[in-house]
Protein backbone atom coordinates (compact mmCIF):
# COMPACT_ATOMS: atom_id res chain seq x y z
CA UNK A 1 0.00 0.00 0.00
CA UNK A 2 1.36 3.32 -1.03
CA UNK A 3 1.75 5.79 1.77
CA UNK A 4 1.78 9.53 1.53
CA UNK A 5 3.53 12.21 3.46
CA UNK A 6 2.25 15.73 3.50
CA UNK A 7 3.05 19.17 4.74
CA UNK A 8 1.24 22.48 4.94
CA UNK A 9 2.43 26.02 4.71
CA UNK A 10 0.34 28.65 6.48
CA UNK A 11 0.28 32.30 5.49
CA UNK A 12 0.64 33.28 9.14
CA UNK A 13 0.01 36.99 8.63
CA UNK A 14 -3.39 36.31 7.03
CA UNK A 15 -4.43 33.52 9.42
CA UNK A 16 -7.15 34.58 11.87
CA UNK A 17 -6.74 31.66 14.24
CA UNK A 18 -10.38 30.51 13.99
CA UNK A 19 -9.35 26.91 14.68
CA UNK A 20 -11.66 25.34 12.08
CA UNK A 21 -8.65 23.56 10.50
CA UNK A 22 -7.59 22.21 13.92
CA UNK A 23 -10.84 20.30 14.49
CA UNK A 24 -11.15 19.17 10.86
CA UNK A 25 -7.66 17.67 10.58
CA UNK A 26 -8.19 13.88 10.69
CA UNK A 27 -4.64 13.27 11.96
CA UNK A 28 -4.49 15.98 14.64
CA UNK A 29 -1.52 17.67 13.01
CA UNK A 30 -2.50 21.32 13.39
CA UNK A 31 -2.53 23.46 16.52
CA UNK A 32 -2.79 27.16 17.20
CA UNK A 33 0.53 28.79 18.07
CA UNK A 34 1.15 30.48 21.40
CA UNK A 35 2.68 33.39 19.49
CA UNK A 36 0.47 35.87 17.67
CA UNK A 37 0.75 37.42 14.22
CA UNK A 38 0.64 41.11 13.36
CA UNK A 39 -3.13 41.23 13.85
CA UNK A 40 -2.94 39.57 17.26
CA UNK A 41 -4.31 36.18 16.23
CA UNK A 42 -2.84 32.85 17.35
CA UNK A 43 -2.06 31.46 13.91
CA UNK A 44 -2.29 27.79 12.89
CA UNK A 45 0.90 25.75 12.49
CA UNK A 46 1.96 22.12 12.07
CA UNK A 47 2.43 20.93 15.64
CA UNK A 48 3.07 17.31 14.59
CA UNK A 49 4.47 17.38 11.05
CA UNK A 50 5.24 13.64 10.99
CA UNK A 51 1.54 12.72 11.08
CA UNK A 52 0.49 14.81 8.04
CA UNK A 53 -0.81 12.78 5.09
CA UNK A 54 -1.53 15.71 2.76
CA UNK A 55 -5.30 15.13 2.62
CA UNK A 56 -5.93 18.89 2.22
CA UNK A 57 -8.93 18.89 4.58
CA UNK A 58 -7.46 21.91 6.36
CA UNK A 59 -7.04 23.83 3.13
CA UNK A 60 -10.57 23.00 2.00
CA UNK A 61 -12.24 24.29 5.18
CA UNK A 62 -9.99 27.31 5.78
CA UNK A 63 -12.29 30.35 5.50
CA UNK A 64 -9.39 32.62 4.61
CA UNK A 65 -7.54 30.37 2.17
CA UNK A 66 -4.25 30.73 4.03
CA UNK A 67 -3.25 27.04 3.90
CA UNK A 68 -1.33 25.50 0.99
CA UNK A 69 -0.99 21.71 1.07
CA UNK A 70 1.89 19.65 -0.34
CA UNK A 71 2.03 15.87 -0.69
CA UNK A 72 4.62 13.28 -1.77
CA UNK A 73 4.21 9.56 -2.41
CA UNK A 74 6.73 7.50 -0.49
Amino acid sequence: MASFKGAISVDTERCKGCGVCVVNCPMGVISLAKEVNGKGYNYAYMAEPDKCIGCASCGIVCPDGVISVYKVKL
Partner: protein
Amino acid sequence: MTVQDIIKPENLVYQKSKLLTNKPFHYCPGCGHGTVHRIIAEVLEELGVDDRTIGVSPVGCAVMAYDYFDVDFVEAAHGRAPACATGIKRVWPDKIVFSYQGDGDLAAIGTCETIHTCNRGENITMIFVNNGIYGMTGGQMAPTTLEGMKTATTPYGRKATLPAGAGFDGIPNNGYPLHITELIAHLPGTKYVTRQAVYDPAHVRNAKKAIKKAFENQINGKSGVNFVEIVSNCNSNWKMEPVAANKWLVENMLPEYPLGDIKVDGKLVEK
Protein backbone atom coordinates in the same frame (compact mmCIF):
# COMPACT_ATOMS: atom_id res chain seq x y z
CA MET B 1 12.11 13.49 4.78
CA THR B 2 11.82 16.96 6.27
CA VAL B 3 9.00 19.44 5.86
CA GLN B 4 11.26 21.57 3.66
CA ASP B 5 11.69 18.62 1.27
CA ILE B 6 7.94 18.27 0.89
CA ILE B 7 7.09 21.96 0.51
CA LYS B 8 8.09 22.34 -3.15
CA PRO B 9 6.00 23.61 -6.07
CA GLU B 10 5.90 20.16 -7.75
CA ASN B 11 4.28 18.61 -4.65
CA LEU B 12 1.51 21.19 -4.33
CA VAL B 13 -1.94 19.61 -4.02
CA TYR B 14 -4.03 22.50 -2.73
CA GLN B 15 -3.77 26.26 -2.58
CA LYS B 16 -6.04 29.31 -2.69
CA SER B 17 -7.48 29.97 -6.15
CA LYS B 18 -5.60 32.44 -8.32
CA LEU B 19 -8.91 34.18 -8.95
CA LEU B 20 -8.86 35.54 -5.41
CA THR B 21 -6.85 38.68 -4.87
CA ASN B 22 -4.22 38.89 -2.15
CA LYS B 23 -6.32 41.26 -0.08
CA PRO B 24 -7.15 39.59 3.27
CA PHE B 25 -10.87 39.00 3.81
CA HIS B 26 -12.43 41.46 6.25
CA TYR B 27 -14.76 38.73 7.57
CA CYS B 28 -14.63 37.62 11.20
CA PRO B 29 -12.46 34.57 12.01
CA GLY B 30 -14.23 31.37 10.95
CA CYS B 31 -16.92 33.10 8.86
CA GLY B 32 -18.48 30.96 6.13
CA HIS B 33 -18.35 33.85 3.63
CA GLY B 34 -14.62 33.28 3.13
CA THR B 35 -15.12 29.59 2.37
CA VAL B 36 -17.93 30.37 -0.08
CA HIS B 37 -15.79 33.02 -1.81
CA ARG B 38 -12.99 30.50 -2.11
CA ILE B 39 -15.11 27.76 -3.68
CA ILE B 40 -16.78 30.17 -6.12
CA ALA B 41 -13.32 31.30 -7.25
CA GLU B 42 -12.20 27.68 -7.62
CA VAL B 43 -15.27 26.81 -9.69
CA LEU B 44 -14.84 29.83 -12.00
CA GLU B 45 -11.16 28.96 -12.42
CA GLU B 46 -11.92 25.30 -13.21
CA LEU B 47 -14.63 26.23 -15.71
CA GLY B 48 -12.30 28.77 -17.33
CA VAL B 49 -14.94 31.49 -17.53
CA ASP B 50 -13.27 34.10 -15.33
CA ASP B 51 -12.69 36.44 -18.28
CA ARG B 52 -16.42 36.67 -19.04
CA THR B 53 -17.92 36.48 -15.54
CA ILE B 54 -19.70 39.39 -13.88
CA GLY B 55 -20.61 39.13 -10.22
CA VAL B 56 -23.16 41.24 -8.36
CA SER B 57 -22.41 41.84 -4.69
CA PRO B 58 -25.05 42.65 -2.08
CA VAL B 59 -25.36 44.99 0.84
CA GLY B 60 -24.35 43.14 3.96
CA CYS B 61 -21.12 41.57 5.14
CA ALA B 62 -20.24 40.56 1.57
CA VAL B 63 -20.63 44.13 0.29
CA MET B 64 -16.94 44.32 -0.55
CA ALA B 65 -16.79 40.98 -2.36
CA TYR B 66 -15.56 42.91 -5.42
CA ASP B 67 -12.27 43.49 -3.64
CA TYR B 68 -11.60 39.77 -3.32
CA PHE B 69 -12.51 38.32 -6.72
CA ASP B 70 -10.37 39.00 -9.75
CA VAL B 71 -13.46 39.13 -11.99
CA ASP B 72 -15.75 41.99 -13.01
CA PHE B 73 -18.17 43.05 -10.29
CA VAL B 74 -21.12 45.35 -9.75
CA GLU B 75 -22.31 46.48 -6.34
CA ALA B 76 -26.12 46.58 -6.21
CA ALA B 77 -28.44 48.49 -3.91
CA HIS B 78 -29.75 46.61 -0.87
CA GLY B 79 -31.66 43.54 -2.02
CA ARG B 80 -31.51 44.48 -5.70
CA ALA B 81 -28.70 42.16 -6.79
CA PRO B 82 -30.99 39.79 -8.79
CA ALA B 83 -32.57 42.76 -10.59
CA CYS B 84 -29.11 44.13 -11.38
CA ALA B 85 -27.96 40.68 -12.56
CA THR B 86 -31.07 40.43 -14.76
CA GLY B 87 -30.14 43.65 -16.53
CA ILE B 88 -26.54 42.58 -17.07
CA LYS B 89 -27.54 39.15 -18.40
CA ARG B 90 -30.10 40.62 -20.81
CA VAL B 91 -27.63 43.11 -22.22
CA TRP B 92 -24.78 40.58 -22.42
CA PRO B 93 -26.34 37.11 -22.78
CA ASP B 94 -22.92 35.56 -23.36
CA LYS B 95 -21.56 36.72 -20.00
CA ILE B 96 -21.70 34.49 -16.93
CA VAL B 97 -23.61 36.44 -14.29
CA PHE B 98 -23.97 35.55 -10.64
CA SER B 99 -25.40 37.32 -7.62
CA TYR B 100 -24.05 36.80 -4.13
CA GLN B 101 -26.37 37.67 -1.25
CA GLY B 102 -26.98 37.11 2.43
CA ASP B 103 -30.27 36.35 4.10
CA GLY B 104 -31.07 39.92 5.13
CA ASP B 105 -30.47 41.04 1.55
CA LEU B 106 -32.12 38.21 -0.36
CA ALA B 107 -34.90 37.13 1.98
CA ALA B 108 -35.89 40.42 3.62
CA ILE B 109 -35.44 43.64 1.70
CA GLY B 110 -34.91 41.86 -1.62
CA THR B 111 -37.77 39.34 -1.39
CA CYS B 112 -39.58 41.05 -4.26
CA GLU B 113 -36.55 41.02 -6.55
CA THR B 114 -35.70 37.43 -5.59
CA ILE B 115 -39.16 36.07 -6.26
CA HIS B 116 -39.70 37.93 -9.52
CA THR B 117 -36.24 37.13 -10.87
CA CYS B 118 -36.89 33.45 -10.14
CA ASN B 119 -40.37 33.72 -11.61
CA ARG B 120 -39.05 35.28 -14.83
CA GLY B 121 -36.58 32.43 -15.15
CA GLU B 122 -33.52 34.56 -15.89
CA ASN B 123 -30.51 32.45 -16.84
CA ILE B 124 -28.35 33.52 -13.89
CA THR B 125 -26.75 31.89 -10.85
CA MET B 126 -27.77 33.08 -7.40
CA ILE B 127 -25.67 32.31 -4.33
CA PHE B 128 -27.52 32.77 -1.05
CA VAL B 129 -25.56 32.66 2.21
CA ASN B 130 -27.99 32.04 5.08
CA ASN B 131 -26.75 32.57 8.62
CA GLY B 132 -30.10 33.44 10.16
CA ILE B 133 -29.13 36.92 11.32
CA TYR B 134 -28.19 40.39 10.09
CA GLY B 135 -24.41 40.20 10.47
CA MET B 136 -23.04 43.58 9.40
CA THR B 137 -25.52 45.79 11.21
CA GLY B 138 -25.09 44.13 14.59
CA GLY B 139 -27.08 40.92 14.82
CA GLN B 140 -30.73 41.93 14.35
CA MET B 141 -33.42 39.36 13.61
CA ALA B 142 -33.66 38.30 9.97
CA PRO B 143 -36.61 36.48 8.37
CA THR B 144 -34.51 33.31 8.49
CA THR B 145 -33.76 33.58 12.24
CA LEU B 146 -34.73 30.39 14.06
CA GLU B 147 -37.59 30.32 16.52
CA GLY B 148 -36.27 30.96 20.01
CA MET B 149 -32.99 32.40 18.72
CA LYS B 150 -31.78 35.46 20.63
CA THR B 151 -30.80 38.45 18.51
CA ALA B 152 -30.36 42.16 19.15
CA THR B 153 -34.01 42.82 18.29
CA THR B 154 -35.42 39.63 19.87
CA PRO B 155 -33.52 39.60 23.17
CA TYR B 156 -35.90 36.99 24.65
CA GLY B 157 -35.71 34.78 21.56
CA ARG B 158 -37.80 34.88 18.38
CA LYS B 159 -41.41 34.01 19.11
CA ALA B 160 -43.59 33.03 16.18
CA THR B 161 -46.75 33.14 18.26
CA LEU B 162 -47.34 35.14 21.39
CA PRO B 163 -48.94 33.36 24.38
CA ALA B 164 -52.73 33.53 24.34
CA GLY B 165 -54.33 35.73 26.95
CA ALA B 166 -51.10 37.58 27.69
CA GLY B 167 -52.59 40.89 26.67
CA PHE B 168 -50.77 40.99 23.33
CA ASP B 169 -53.70 39.90 21.17
CA GLY B 170 -53.61 41.67 17.84
CA ILE B 171 -49.98 42.79 18.18
CA PRO B 172 -47.81 41.53 15.32
CA ASN B 173 -45.40 38.81 16.44
CA ASN B 174 -42.01 37.76 15.07
CA GLY B 175 -43.30 35.22 12.55
CA TYR B 176 -41.82 31.91 11.45
CA PRO B 177 -38.39 31.27 9.85
CA LEU B 178 -38.73 32.00 6.13
CA HIS B 179 -37.85 29.07 3.88
CA ILE B 180 -37.28 31.13 0.78
CA THR B 181 -35.36 28.37 -0.99
CA GLU B 182 -38.31 25.96 -0.80
CA LEU B 183 -40.59 28.83 -1.77
CA ILE B 184 -38.78 29.72 -4.99
CA ALA B 185 -38.26 26.03 -5.86
CA HIS B 186 -41.97 25.86 -6.61
CA LEU B 187 -41.70 28.57 -9.26
CA PRO B 188 -41.43 27.27 -12.84
CA GLY B 189 -38.63 29.75 -13.59
CA THR B 190 -36.05 27.97 -11.41
CA LYS B 191 -33.87 25.30 -12.93
CA TYR B 192 -31.66 24.10 -10.10
CA VAL B 193 -32.32 24.77 -6.41
CA THR B 194 -30.18 23.31 -3.67
CA ARG B 195 -29.14 23.88 -0.06
CA GLN B 196 -25.58 23.18 1.11
CA ALA B 197 -23.27 23.99 4.03
CA VAL B 198 -19.55 24.71 4.44
CA TYR B 199 -18.71 23.75 8.04
CA ASP B 200 -16.58 20.67 7.29
CA PRO B 201 -14.51 19.31 4.36
CA ALA B 202 -17.17 16.88 3.10
CA HIS B 203 -19.84 19.57 2.96
CA VAL B 204 -17.45 22.06 1.37
CA ARG B 205 -16.86 19.52 -1.42
CA ASN B 206 -20.62 19.01 -1.87
CA ALA B 207 -21.20 22.76 -1.90
CA LYS B 208 -18.50 23.17 -4.53
CA LYS B 209 -20.15 20.51 -6.71
CA ALA B 210 -23.49 22.29 -6.35
CA ILE B 211 -22.02 25.69 -7.25
CA LYS B 212 -20.24 24.12 -10.21
CA LYS B 213 -23.49 22.61 -11.46
CA ALA B 214 -25.23 25.96 -11.00
CA PHE B 215 -22.62 27.65 -13.20
CA GLU B 216 -22.52 24.81 -15.75
CA ASN B 217 -26.29 25.06 -16.23
CA GLN B 218 -25.90 28.75 -16.97
CA ILE B 219 -22.97 28.21 -19.35
CA ASN B 220 -24.90 25.50 -21.21
CA GLY B 221 -27.68 28.01 -21.74
CA LYS B 222 -30.31 26.07 -19.81
CA SER B 223 -32.88 28.75 -19.18
CA GLY B 224 -33.84 29.27 -15.56
CA VAL B 225 -32.41 30.52 -12.30
CA ASN B 226 -29.77 28.34 -10.63
CA PHE B 227 -30.09 28.93 -6.90
CA VAL B 228 -27.62 27.68 -4.27
CA GLU B 229 -28.32 28.33 -0.60
CA ILE B 230 -25.37 27.90 1.76
CA VAL B 231 -26.24 27.49 5.44
CA SER B 232 -23.47 29.41 7.15
CA ASN B 233 -22.47 30.69 10.56
CA CYS B 234 -22.20 34.12 12.15
CA ASN B 235 -20.06 33.45 15.18
CA SER B 236 -19.72 37.12 16.15
CA ASN B 237 -23.44 37.76 16.35
CA TRP B 238 -24.32 34.30 17.61
CA LYS B 239 -21.73 35.21 20.29
CA MET B 240 -19.79 31.97 20.02
CA GLU B 241 -16.30 30.88 19.08
CA PRO B 242 -15.98 29.72 15.45
CA VAL B 243 -15.82 25.98 16.21
CA ALA B 244 -18.71 26.21 18.70
CA ALA B 245 -20.73 28.17 16.14
CA ASN B 246 -20.25 25.39 13.56
CA LYS B 247 -21.43 22.84 16.15
CA TRP B 248 -24.46 25.01 16.95
CA LEU B 249 -25.16 25.25 13.21
CA VAL B 250 -25.24 21.44 12.89
CA GLU B 251 -27.49 21.05 15.94
CA ASN B 252 -29.92 23.91 15.34
CA MET B 253 -29.76 25.34 11.82
CA LEU B 254 -29.67 22.06 9.89
CA PRO B 255 -32.88 20.56 11.40
CA GLU B 256 -34.70 23.74 10.31
CA TYR B 257 -32.88 24.03 6.97
CA PRO B 258 -32.16 20.44 5.82
CA LEU B 259 -29.37 20.06 3.26
CA GLY B 260 -29.73 18.59 -0.20
CA ASP B 261 -31.07 19.24 -3.69
CA ILE B 262 -34.60 20.61 -3.77
CA LYS B 263 -35.00 20.93 -7.55
CA VAL B 264 -32.80 19.42 -10.26
CA ASP B 265 -33.20 20.15 -13.99
CA GLY B 266 -36.53 21.84 -13.38
CA LYS B 267 -38.07 18.94 -11.44
CA LEU B 268 -38.71 18.94 -7.69
CA VAL B 269 -36.76 16.22 -5.88
CA GLU B 270 -39.04 13.70 -4.12
CA LYS B 271 -38.22 13.48 -0.42
